[in-house]
């Protein structure tokens, strides 16, 4: 007589291609070499996105969007809701770690040249996901409706307003009016909890499907080495060997998030007062600091153009170059353009320096 477990399994087999999936998972291999640990970053980013989705869903149960209620509801979550402080602090810390991890994943893919043919679309979907994560960060920042978030959003929405022709419509679209009001809050709330998650879910599905389809990329140097000395080629099974290792990394991230939330609970701040003057030295979140500091340092007039507008256009060009990067490289597998990692190094160094400068500058 079949055990209950076997019965359930048999029932499922008849209705769902469980065995096919299992076969696929067991067939999938992950290359093992001296850079293999970089493969964990993508999974870690995915894990943090999952944490965001889960904690975000929990916060939704108590959060009330609206200029008169938002701050109070977050205060209620932090003080009255059982483990509300933990959920909110984990959500905030995880958001920051997620952006950091997404950038780390991007640069690891860039330096390992994993964007090369046939993975161009994987790269493009990844860059779009990074933009989405920044969008999540920007839209979520205003939701607690505190002084810092209010004025940071005010400054943040003024930046795209510098773009010629479309600047003002963009500002009005983002703010839902001339000023930062309850309309801005509900608008960004809509983006944060509905539009961005829907688009992100589709893009993550595409990104993961492409990774499953093409498998893990092997860096050109390692690939060349394996071609000349095939006996050196090593692989591990994706399931369970790689998945279990990834699980260990996720547990470490979970512990880190818990520790950050317990030791440094995310501050609530002071309720936003639209009639108050902006606090001195107001700054955006760290991941926008490099851009913010650059715009601050650009002279008012540069090359006969408005400095700030030139800066914004430059960032637009950088974003476009990042998006189309795989198409700028050569298709030959082992003869990639050397200027790409060089430029990436310069860009990374610039971002780091400007972020630190923006952090310490008054």
């Amino acid at each position: 007589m079949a055990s209950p477990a076997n019965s359930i399994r048999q029932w499922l087999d008849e209705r769902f291609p469980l065995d096919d999936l299992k076969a696929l998972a067991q067939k999938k291999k992950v290359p093992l070499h001296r850079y293999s640990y970089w493969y964990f970053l993508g999974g870690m980013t995915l894990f943090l996105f999952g944490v965001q989705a889960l904690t975000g869903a929990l916060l939704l149960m108590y959060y009330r969007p609206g200029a008169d209620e938002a701050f109070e509801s977050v205060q209620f979550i932090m003080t009255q809701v059982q483990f509300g402080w933990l959920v909110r602090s984990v959500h905030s810390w995880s958001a920051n770690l997620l952006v950091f991890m997404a950038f780390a994943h991007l640069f690891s893919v860039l330096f390992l040249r994993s964007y090369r043919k046939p993975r161009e679309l994987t790269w493009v979907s990844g860059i779009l996901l990074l933009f989405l994560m920044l969008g999540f960060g920007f839209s979520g920042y205003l939701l607690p409706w505190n002084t810092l978030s209010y004025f940071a959003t005010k400054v943040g929405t003024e930046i795209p307003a510098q773009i010629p022709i479309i600047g003002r419509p963009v500002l009005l679209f983002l703010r839902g009016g001339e000023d930062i009001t309850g309309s801005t809050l509900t608008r960004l709330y809509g983006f944060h909890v509905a539009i961005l998650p829907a688009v992100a879910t589709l893009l993550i599905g595409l990104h993961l499907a492409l990774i499953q389809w093409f498998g893990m990329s092997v860096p050109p140097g390692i690939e060349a080495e394996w071609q000349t000395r095939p006996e050196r080629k090593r692989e591990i099974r994706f399931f369970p060997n790689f998945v279990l290792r990834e699980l260990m990394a996720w547990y470490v991230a979970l512990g880190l998030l818990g520790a950050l939330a317990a030791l440094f609970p995310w501050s609530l701040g002071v309720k936003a007062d639209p009639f108050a003057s902006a606090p001195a030295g107001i700054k955006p979140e760290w991941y926008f600091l490099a851009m913010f500091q650059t715009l601050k340092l650009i002279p008012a007039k540069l090359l006969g153009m408005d400095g700030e507008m030139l800066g914004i256009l430059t960032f637009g060009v950088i974003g476009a170059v990042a998006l189309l990067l795989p198409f700028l490289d050569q298709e030959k597998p082992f003869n990639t353009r050397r200027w790409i990692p060089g430029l990436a190094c310069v860009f990374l160094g610039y971002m780091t320096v400007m972020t630190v400068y923006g952090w310490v500058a008054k």
Partner: protein
Amino acid sequence: MNRVRGLVTWRRRAGLVLAALLVCSGLMVFAQTKNSCLDCHSNLPEPLGVSAETYSQNIHAQKGLTCAACHGGDASADDPEKAMSRAAGWKGKINRKQIPELCASCHADAERMKKYNPGLRVDQFQQYKTSVHGMKWAKDDGKVAVCTDCHGVHDLRAPSDPRSTVHPTNIATTCSHCHADAEYMKPYGIKTDQFANYEQSVHHDAMVVRGDLSAPTCTTCHGNHGATPPGVANVTAVCSNCHVFQAQLFETSQHKDVFATMGLPGCVTCHSNHAIKHPTDEMIGTGPKAVCTNCHIVGDAGATQAEAMHNQLTELAAAIAASDELLGRAERQGMEVSQAKLQAAQARDALLKARVTVHAFRDSELKRDTDAGLAVTRQTHAAGEKAMEEWKFRRVGLGLSVVAIAIVLVGLGLYIRNLEQK
């Protein structure tokens, strides 16, 4: 040809307009009040000299008056003989005795003053005559203050101008020019330590250091044009202009009649007058800084009640401090206590109210306020304790989570090793 004629006509018209403008502007300059006195006096040394800059900042000059308005003569005449001719009414240096009446000739004339400042009072001279200064002036005392001693002469500015000698922040200094001069005040037999005392007071601190123009200065209590020392019976009335509730409570207290019988001025008896220090809870009770023991003997009914009131105030103040310290500690640990901190403001309000209620000198009444404050501090303290307990709970929870995660990690590591060894 027509075009050339048109051009000539256009030029002619433009020339006419320009000429008209020049003539008009010339007339406008001529129409401005001429003050030829400055032509010479701006180059003369003191006391006859008045610089053009000083004169330009004078409120009278700004209103279009010339030197002739006070000194007489003809300010429009370029010839000094004509300008300073007796026939033109020139008076020369104004006699000190004549100053109040000279000023009053305009400032007591409502019709005339309306042209310059309809809101300005015109009873200054009437008030002056009721003041100690004015009464002595009427008796030909040449030393007492007349208008120009306080307001200045050629550099006279509107009182709202911070550089004016009668701007609220400068009044005490202006009064001190005479009243802090022991030699000058000798004939009058009054003290000259008022300014030195005032400089030590909470009122001076508010006015000069904090720039609070609503804080009292000499004229707030003594009056300005009708300046007179408030009598014993009037002190409470003077202080109550600002300290309304304290005065009302004092009126209901047993001290009111007792002080009146003893000839003691209400507020001043405990708080002094010019040297009013920031009141503390130590002022009430039987401690070394208490003023109650100036009249009461330790152990008598009044002293016992004073001691009880002191204890009520200090108990609430200590409870607020303890609650603030606890909430501050919790906040530094990252705990969210903003609601409790907001609530703590109610306790501070209760203490503030209690410090006012003291002026009724009834401990039962004071207890109502301090009890209300203590009830709030019990709640805020409890909120602080709860926050600290929560903080400890989070630490323990974090520790347990780390242990659990470490166990899972070790387990996973062993499982992977076992899996890959097969």
